[in-house]
């Protein structure tokens, strides 16, 4: 009995230490768990990622299995989302289509996030001429509507997965650059930055160890939110024929090739469209949820 008591207290004690140690992330997670819509969206996104990774195992048919005898069938038990004009199963194509969409979104967002954060850091931290030249460059990019910019870049580079990523990524660099620059402008005046300098830390050390971790929360939120925009942009490029080319299954190009049949065969365009909508919506809600969880002050 006595023995049990002492182990209990040890456990409680170590839990206490452990609990304290984890508290920052744990707090965010606990606040996030309270947000039901965000949880649902996280679940949907997780499903999508699973679909993209295990498309071969999940999809009932191959994405390019043509069979003209079963073309343009309405949704049925055999083909839950129906078939397209070549008799390909739309459900399978949607499952495979999650791959390029998520890949483009992930890569382009990572690219613009890193580039934008770098520009914002340098501009905000060093100020003056550096700030001015970088931010004017950013202004130029931002002066062009992002879809126009993406279209012209894609037209210039030609179609293909990699080029879509670049085209979509460049347009969103200004968002990160501005966000990070603004955070850094207020952070670098803080006393703890001076304190870090007073223990002998150099600029690079201060930026990476002290400033960036402090503006990570808005960056993460911005990144999550712009995944949705990136998916829309990628689908848009594919729709107008500048993105990923058919027959690669991609939601945007599925919409594009189905639009001629839209009046008679609604299912050909409805399901890819719904997928785009649902994915973008999920990422946006998730981003909102993350923002509320990471910075409760922002919540109204």
């Amino acid at each position, binding site marked *: 009995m006595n023995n049990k008591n002492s182990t209990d207290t040890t456990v409680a004690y170590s839990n206490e230490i452990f609990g304290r140690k984890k508290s*920052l992330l744990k707090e965010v997670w606990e606040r996030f768990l309270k947000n039901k819509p965000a949880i649902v969206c996280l679940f949907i996104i997780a499903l999508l990622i699973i679909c993209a990774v295990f498309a071969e195992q999940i999809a009932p048919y191959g994405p390019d299995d043509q069979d003209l005898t079963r073309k343009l069938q309405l949704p049925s038990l055999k083909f839950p989302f129906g078939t397209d004009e070549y008799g390909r199963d739309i459900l399978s194509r949607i499952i495979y289509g999650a791959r390029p969409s998520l890949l483009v979104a992930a890569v382009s967002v990572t690219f613009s996030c890193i580039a934008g954060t770098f520009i914002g850091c340098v501009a905000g931290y060093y100020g003056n001429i550096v700030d001015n030249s970088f931010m004017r460059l950013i202004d130029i990019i931002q002066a062009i509507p992002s879809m126009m910019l993406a279209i012209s870049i894609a037209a210039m580079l030609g179609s293909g997965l990699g080029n879509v990523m670049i085209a979509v990524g460049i347009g969103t660099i200004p968002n990160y650059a501005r966000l990070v620059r603004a955070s850094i402008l207020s952070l670098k005046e803080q006393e703890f930055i001076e*304190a870090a*300098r007073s*223990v*002998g*830390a*150099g600029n690079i050390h201060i930026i990476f160890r002290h400033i960036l971790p402090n503006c990570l929360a808005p960056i993460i939120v911005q990144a999550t939110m712009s995944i949705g925009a990136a998916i829309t942009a990628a689908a848009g490029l594919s729709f107008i024929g500048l993105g990923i080319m058919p027959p690669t299954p991609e939601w945007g190009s599925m919409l594009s090739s189905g639009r001629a049949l839209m009046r008679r065969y609604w299912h050909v365009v409805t399901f890819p469209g719904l997928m785009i909508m649902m994915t973008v919506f999920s990422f946006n809600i998730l981003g909102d949820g993350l923002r509320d969880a990471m910075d409760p002050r922002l919540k109204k």
Partner: protein
Amino acid sequence: MQDKNRILLEIENLVVHYITGKTVVKAVNGISLQIEKGEALGLVGETGAGKTTTAYSIMQIIPDPPGKIIDGKILFEGEDLNKLPEREMKKVRGNKISMIFQDPMTALNPVMEVGTQIAEGIRLHEHVSKSEANIKAMQIMEKVGISAERFSDYPHQFSGGMKQRIVIAIALACHPALLIADEPTTALDVTIQAQVLSLIEKLQKEMDTSMLLITHDLGVVTEICQKAAIMYAGEIVEYGTLEHIYNNTRHPYTIGLFGSLPNFTDNVRRLKPIKGMMSDPSNLPDGCFFAPRCPHATEVCRNGQIPVIELEPGHLVKCLKCGY
């Protein structure tokens, strides 16, 4: 004459201005002071007197722009810090000279474990592995009275007084030769102030560190320091040992400061505050800067340079009216 070898820090005629557009804020106007090894000097003055600017100049962390060190020498172990390249200065900061900041609430990085913040200085200056640095950091934490178990806690999990202990631990992590404490107790409540002060004093004695204590509290100076410098409008108006300053007060400003302190021994019914406000540092008067508020000021005080008079060896006063 003092032994030259004992002098750790010597500031000669330091001038620091903040230049914004056309206005020039004259924050520090030619101060000179010396700190010997193991000695504690109290730098006393009201808000805006240039105390913190002096500290930042020693650390060479004046925000530039707008701040600029216009003139003067800061000799630390015989080297002029004003002329030291940034690369060398980095090795001095935190290693040989370190600083305790005024407000522990803002001087700690909110998203970094406190232990890591203490270990940071050690890792920057001593070539030790991460785990060795962490062990050293834990030892220092114990020294300032915080259990090493709290190494992985974040600043928001500490109270104000404990945060200040962490700040002290960061400052002392590399056993600096000179510790600059910039109003270390101002942001703390009265009950904690005494604890933190005695901790600073204890560690300073233990590590044989020299200290520049910046404060506006004359009482704090008597407890910790051996010498005091009274600053007004960017100048040191009176400088000497505690004996000189407290028992042989000469400068009208210092007298005024003592007059505004409550006193238990004398039967005084009212405090005597210094009348008026400190002159605008961007528009300082000619002559003695204190003249507009000084009860003894005459016409001679309002023109030209006021000489520094050495009343006794080591007791310097910048006033025309007390030299006899």
